[in-house]
């Protein structure tokens, strides 16, 4: 068993395709860590706030930023369009609007000559929009990345088993080991492949972080992503984030629960896909079986975003979906990244997911065992 496992893993990774993939993912990761250098910066307009308002703002965590001088920074994205981050500020909106208008007019007038200023002064009415740019944007980006990577992972097991079945190699292999052993070995092999792939991505990420840290400790990057609203807090350096992570036990717990949820969901999806794919007798049929499954997963993904947009993930529907197998794979990490979930809730979700995974394992193995080669 070990010989074949080792052979399969070598076969998967020691190929030109894999090396190219790794090189590509490393390049993309490195590029992402220099995003502040190649993406355009937003213009920042400073509004001087009255001191009594500064205190008021500081009491409301939802206001994004109040600096030491009492200036609130409001992003200026395009002429006549302002984004106030984050959403749900209960600051008196009339005051806010009048301040933005004033600030906007000053900003615009400065960009025109004196002759033109009179002509355009009437056009300087800004469009005020309180956009729901959630503080969880970065989480959504990370989860999206994991989720779409998942699409590539889940077909590994079924494609592997079916290619061996169709190339007849499976018959030779099954003359050396039982069907159960082969099935378990393939499952283990897929898990090792996924872990290895995630490990490679993490290695690439750590390298990219190292390169960026040696440049300016990531301070400009962190400032940029903070200004974009992708993170909630402003960090001075990458090192300070790492330190925070080790200090905060809840963050570590969230990561462990998220990882477990993701792995359980991933295995469940892989086994379900294998279960259905075993019905295919030709490779053409395989595509026909797998495509609807992928569509379903993408629908699931957008549905979760929609729920998040409509009512917040920790509301009624979101909290129910946290415990639904497969769906918990995405809802769990998303919720953990945004809210504090009671540990027993996370544990319950993982237990339910594990039982479901075991049931799917039995079903898919039975289906594989009954296959006539």
């Amino acid at each position, binding site marked *: *068993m070990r*010989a*074949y496992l080792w*052979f399969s893993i070598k*076969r998967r990774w020691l190929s030109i395709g894999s090396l190219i993939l790794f090189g590509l993912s490393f390049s993309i990761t490195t590029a992402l860590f220099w995003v502040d250098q190649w993406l355009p910066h937003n213009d920042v307009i400073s509004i001087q706030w009255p001191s009594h308002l500064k205190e008021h703002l500081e009491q409301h965590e939802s206001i994004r930023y109040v600096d030491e001088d009492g200036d609130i920074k409001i992003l200026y994205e395009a002429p006549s369009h302002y984004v106030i981050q984050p959403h749900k500020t209960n600051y008196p909106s009339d005051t806010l609007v009048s301040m933005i208008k004033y600030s906007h007019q000053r900003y615009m007038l400065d960009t025109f000559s004196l002759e033109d200023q009179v002509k355009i002064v009437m056009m300087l009415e800004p469009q005020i929009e309180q956009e729901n740019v959630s503080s969880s944007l970065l989480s959504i980006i990370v989860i999206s990345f994991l989720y779409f990577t998942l699409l590539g992972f889940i077909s590994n097991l079924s494609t592997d088993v079916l290619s061996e079945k169709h*190339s*007849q*190699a*499976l*018959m*030779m*292999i*099954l*003359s*050396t*080991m*039982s069907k159960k052993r082969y099935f378990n070995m393939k499952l283990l092999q897929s898990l090792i492949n996924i872990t290895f792939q995630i490990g490679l991505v993490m290695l690439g990420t750590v390298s990219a972080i190292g390169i960026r840290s040696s440049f300016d400790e990531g301070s400009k990057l962190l400032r940029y992503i903070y200004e974009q609203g992708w993170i909630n807090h402003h960090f001075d350096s990458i090192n300070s984030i790492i330190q925070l992570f080790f200090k905060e036990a809840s963050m570590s717990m969230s990561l462990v629960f998220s990882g477990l949820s993701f792995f359980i969901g991933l295995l469940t999806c892989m086994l379900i896909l294998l279960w259905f794919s075993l019905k295919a007798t030709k490779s053409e049929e395989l595509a026909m079986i797998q495509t609807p499954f992928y569509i379903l997963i993408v629908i699931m993904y957008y549905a979760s975003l929609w729920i998040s947009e409509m009512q917040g993930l920790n509301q009624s529907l979101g909290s129910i979906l946290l415990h639904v197998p497969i769906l918990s794979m995405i809802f769990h990490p998303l919720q953990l990244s945004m809210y504090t979930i009671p540990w027993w809730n996370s544990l319950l979700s993982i237990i339910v997911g594990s039982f479901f995974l075991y049931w799917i394992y039995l079903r898919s193995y039975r289906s594989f*065992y*009954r296959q*006539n*080669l």
Partner: protein
Amino acid sequence: MLKVKQLSKVYTNQKGIFNVSFECAPSEVMGIIGDNGSGKSTLFKCLAQINGYDKGLIELNTQSLHLKDVGFLPEHKAIIEELTAMEFVELFAKMKGCSEEQRSISIQDFSNSLHTHDIMDQKIKHLSKGNKQKIQIMATCIHEPKLIILDEPFSGLDDVNHSHMKNFIVSLKKKDKIVLLSSHRIEDIEHVCDSVCWIKEGRLSEKYSIYALKEDSSLIHVKVSFDPYQQFKDEKGITSVVNEGNMSVYCFDQVSQAHQFMKLILKQRKNQSVSIHHQVSCP
């Protein structure tokens, strides 16, 4: 001794094998002859434990058959093309639990029998069909199983490779292995087999000694049960017919004609208990 009793495997389309029984002694090479879809491969896959079976018993030396006791060569080429011949054989040797020493001796031994010394370091994708077949049979037998099942081993081989394969099977016989092999035609395997069976629509005939078939073809007698009125006496190739109770004994002077006759009987009497015998004088 390999004993197969009342082995049945029925697919959802009602095809498969039905109540197959036979015995095979060590050093015996037994051929199973049948058309496409007759049940040869199904029988072999059940014996190799690749597919489960609905009922029946398979025993080797009075014990249940274990995977390590079986070497199975599938009908279609089951080769991992990107490996070299040596890597492929070694992979299967490791999977079958051979020690490094045993691997090295067996590879040397089989390379001599199959004349594969020159191709062991080549990528399998660059090998000819015949050489691929040789490599696959090496991988099948590398762990020295007691029972070797070869599904159409001569298919697509040229004369030289045919001869190498034949010698290899004879060498297995000398090692006291039980060898089961299949073919569409008796002419392909008669030179290596000790005995043959015919299979049609999942039903296996009784075993016939190949020596008798080859020595004196005029001694081929096919006994058909429940045939007191010599129902098939007008069929092609019959030299004489005699009655034995409610059974008719049809005599042939050519193996191929007897083969055709047996096929006809199996086809026409598939739903009845048919007993076909071959009376021979062994040399």
